[in-house]
């Protein structure tokens, strides 16, 4: 139940709005401590909600809570240099809390709750600068897109519930662990719904465009949203229900191919971007494509390493954006030399992203590919890897080429997380060592996962090195790639406009037909009331007045005995008692 701490403090911050930065950072630190503790002790609770719900920290969840808490702490420390409003920190803490709830949930109801709160917080954070209409639109696009995917999760929950009520299964109702044993056709429905929701949340094709829109939020938001929360939630969910996907037979390959194609196409998109944050966003889609390609152990390793790398890169981009006022690649010339702390950290992150040996993503990406047996998909993965090296190299060259001396002075405290994350990005590849790999795959519940062999490691390393060098030559930038494959326009044309037209039609029907009928009722009532007023209301009014008048009259009468004269008091008391006495004697 570690999610309670950040959520509660976040909600409190939104209400009280005192000392937000210190509170948020200390809360994040406490959450990290709690997460480590939870990862060691593996607590589990269960409680009756609608059904028996619960939270538990198993191996995969342990990895996730520590990753989430650590990245959240780094991001919040960084944010203290940029933002001061309590609203931001409150929303961020609730966001983190929702993610923690999602990854520790053992059952669909609570998972949905965390999932939904996370979505709502992402909306609030992307549209954080709400006076800017564009950003709010972006937040809306991101929210509606992910929500559209979320519908799948509701379908899944409904199907699972239907399966449980029709009987034939035992175990926890809506429990995640019980999903693979569902009878057909419910199992396929559940799997389809979950896949849809996860692909939407993790910005895989065809949902990828919302991640481009999500760049409208503050840089710390991007850093958190792209690394350890939100998009990671989609990937996590797919890793979590891997047994279900495997059980269906069709879902696993589908997800793997979607992931592979996303990695490839969005890699191309990333290569064509001129905006550093957009480049990183597209690369997030591409990297998440690797995570969902079917290997639990490799995917989890890639998720953790990517969390460190991507939060680092976004924080670096955010630092330059604050200091230099730009995120355009051509205007960032010399940014690396101007701020060497950021520059070196960023370089480590970018080289890791490129998949250069011996950095982390080199190993984890190949660990994913090691489990891919389809040769075509494997080839797609390799090509996507080469693309990631190319765009990472492009970003690296853009910030290190040339030199400059303008811009604000460097921050020290709030930039401190960057080197730490860089260290993480560099060394997390140790997971590929044979002994570590055995422990890791057992930890995340995928024992015996295929370990990457030296040959393919060497191959991909060489490929990456070669691809990085292409950054030195100018590449064409086709419009279709700079515009994110036209996905948003397509979604608007194919889904949004018809939906809106349908809604307008329905609204017309509601206003004219339904509302007309509803409004006729009060009109009729008013007419009847007018009719009734003249003769009857007068009568009722008269009765009310008469009652009031009578009460006042009685009141006057009741005060009459209170003459102020003692002898009348005594006489009245005596008379009253005599009457009582006589009555009691006579009645008896």
């Amino acid at each position, binding site marked *: 139940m570690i999610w309670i701490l950040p959520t509660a403090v976040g909600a409190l911050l939104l209400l009280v709005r005192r000392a937000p930065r210190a509170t948020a950072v200390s809360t994040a630190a406490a959450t990290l401590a709690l997460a480590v503790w939870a990862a060691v002790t593996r607590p589990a609770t269960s409680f009756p909600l609608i059904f028996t719900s619960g939270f538990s920290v198993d191996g995969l969840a342990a990895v996730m809570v520590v990753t989430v808490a650590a990245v959240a702490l780094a991001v919040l420390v960084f944010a203290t240099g940029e933002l001061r409003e309590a609203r931001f920190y409150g929303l961020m803490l609730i966001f983190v809390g929702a993610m923690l709830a999602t990854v520790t949930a053992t059952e669909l109801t609570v998972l949905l709750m965390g999932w939904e709160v996370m979505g709502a917080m992402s909306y609030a954070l992307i549209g954080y600068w709400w006076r800017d209409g564009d950003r709010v639109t972006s937040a809306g696009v991101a929210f509606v897109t992910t929500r559209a995917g979320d519908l799948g999760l509701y379908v899944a929950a409904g199907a699972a519930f239907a399966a449980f009520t029709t009987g034939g299964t035992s175990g926890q109702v809506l429990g995640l662990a019980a999903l693979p044993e569902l009878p057909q056709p419910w199992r396929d429905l559940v799997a389809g719904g979950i896949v849809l929701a996860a692909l939407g949340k993790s910005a895989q094709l065809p949902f990828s465009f919302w991640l481009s829109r999500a760049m409208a939020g503050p840089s710390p938001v991007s850093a958190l949203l792209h690394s350890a929360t939100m998009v990671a939630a989609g990937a996590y969910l797919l890793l979590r229900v891997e047994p279900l996907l495997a059980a269906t037979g069709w879902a696993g390959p589908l997800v793997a191919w979607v992931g592979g194609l996303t990695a490839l196409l969005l890699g191309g998109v990333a290569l064509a971007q001129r905006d550093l944050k957009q480049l990183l966003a597209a690369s997030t889609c591409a990297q998440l494509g690797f995570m969902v390609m079917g290997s639990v152990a490799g995917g989890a390793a890639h998720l953790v390493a990517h969390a460190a790398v991507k939060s680092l890169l976004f924080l670096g981009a955010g630092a330059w954006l604050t200091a230099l006022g730009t995120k355009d690649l051509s205007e960032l010339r010399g940014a690396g030399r101007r701020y060497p702390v950021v520059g070196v950290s960023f370089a480590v992150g970018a080289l890791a992203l490129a998949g250069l040996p011996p950095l982390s993503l080199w190993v984890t990406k190949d660990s994913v590919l090691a489990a891919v047996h389809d040769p075509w998909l494997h080839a797609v993965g390799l090509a996507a890897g080469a693309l990631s090296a190319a765009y990472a190299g492009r970003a690296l060259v853009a910030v290190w080429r040339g030199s400059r001396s303008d811009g604000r002075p460097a921050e020290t405290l709030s930039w401190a997380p960057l080197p730490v994350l860089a260290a993480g990005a560099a060394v997390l590849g140790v997971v590929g060592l044979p002994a570590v790999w055995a422990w890791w795959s057992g930890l995340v519940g995928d024992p015996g996962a295929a370990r990457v062999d030296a040959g393919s490691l060497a191959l991909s390393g060489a490929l990456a090195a070669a691809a990085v060098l292409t950054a030195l030559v100018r590449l064409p930038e086709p419009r279709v790639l700079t515009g994110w494959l036209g996905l948003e326009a397509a979604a608007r044309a194919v889904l949004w406009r018809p939906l809106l037209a349908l809604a307008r039609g329905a609204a017309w029907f509601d206003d004219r037909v339904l509302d007309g009928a509803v409004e006729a009722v009060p009109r009729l009532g008013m007419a009847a009331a007018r009719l009734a007023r003249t003769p009857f209301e007068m009568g009722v009014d008269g009765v009310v007045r008469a009652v009031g008048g009578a009460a*006042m009259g009685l009141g006057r009468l*009741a005060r009459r005995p209170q003459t102020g004269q*003692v002898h009348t008091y*005594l006489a009245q*008391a005596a008379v*009253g*008692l005599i009457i009582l006495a006589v009555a*009691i004697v006579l009645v008896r």
Partner: protein
Amino acid sequence: MTGMAENPLDLLPELLILAGAVLGLLTGLFVPRERQGVVAWICAAALAGSLAATLAVIGRPDVMAFESFAVDLPTNVARLTVAATTLLVLPLARSWAPGDRRESEVYTLVMLAALGALVLAGADDLLVLVAAYLLASIPAYALTGFAKDAAGTEAALKYYLLGAFLGVLMLAGVTLVYGTAGVTAYPDLDRAAPGVAVVLLLAGLLVKAGGVPGHFWVPDAAEGASRPVAAFLTTVPKAGAFVALYRLAQDVFDQPMLPAVLAAVTMTLGNLAAFAQDNVRRLLAYSTVSQAGYLLVPVAMAGRGDLAEPALLFYVAAYAVTNLGAFAVVAAAGTDRLSGYAGLARRSPLLAFSLVVCLLGLVGTPPTAVFVGKVLVFAAAWQGGYAWLAVVAAVNTVASLFYYLRWIRPLYAEGEGEPVGNGWVACVCAAVSLVLGIASGAVLLIPSGGIN
């Protein structure tokens, strides 16, 4: 009654109050005038001790002390109510009495009257009842006229004459009972007292309780006496008188119709008379008369169902604290005219809010304590087979809303007025009324855990 005892410790709460009164009087004799306030502290300590002593024994098995004083749940509730409300009256008196030549006597008289109310509540023998009646009455007469002004003196005389007249009748009733039964202890009377004697017995207690036909003194005394004294007179003696009435109805006579009729007449008369009052003290006085009517309902239902006793005890406690709160607001506001309360909410929001809580409490609005008391009272009447009485009480409750709202409305209107005094007693009363109402479930469960 599970046992007899002659252990003075059973009477510790009463003895503490007596000791406080005596010690206060003696201290007052030797302390210079400007430092007489110390007497108030002595009395407060005695009352606090009495409260603590009561809390320590509440829930113990019933005891009959000296064959004439019942130590059971009704007595203990009366002890708590009397000690607590008296403790709250002291600060009111403390802001009125200083500088008076006889300041310490105020506190002593208050203590003695409270003691009288306590003995009244616990009396289990007609002779003790008479003694308690006198102990409760005489200090009260003195307090009423304490200010030595025309209004107070007149009120004191009226109170005294009415109390003496009906008190003598009560004594006659005691004589009659003794003459027919040969005993005066309640348990031996076996609910067989003759009808005329019952009327006479009730006469005296109704003066203390402020019920018809002994209610005539209430408006005059509430208006004529000083404000703290008015608060005391309409609160503390009632607690004792109603518990005494309940004991009589339970042990001495079996005439439920008599108190039922008195209840109906009392609540109706009180409510009607309060309608057009512009003097808030007279308004509150009539309101206390109507509340006495509601309190007579469980008295009539004594022995007719298990709801009567909790209804009476809870209502007594709730009424005492709520009524005291309303009077405390009057004492703090320092004005008796209804128009003087215009705009009070702006001058002192907390005081105005306390008044609203207390007045709505007297109406019987949730979540205040009197609401719970009223519900219990209605339920007791229903359970006892007196549905008509419940209906009369409900109708009266609705009617009473009128004059309470008449007082609430000007609070939130525009208006200038005198600056208000310190009203923390009113706030405490309002808070207790709310807490007692909200926690009523728990409070009502306490005795069923301890007794039985």
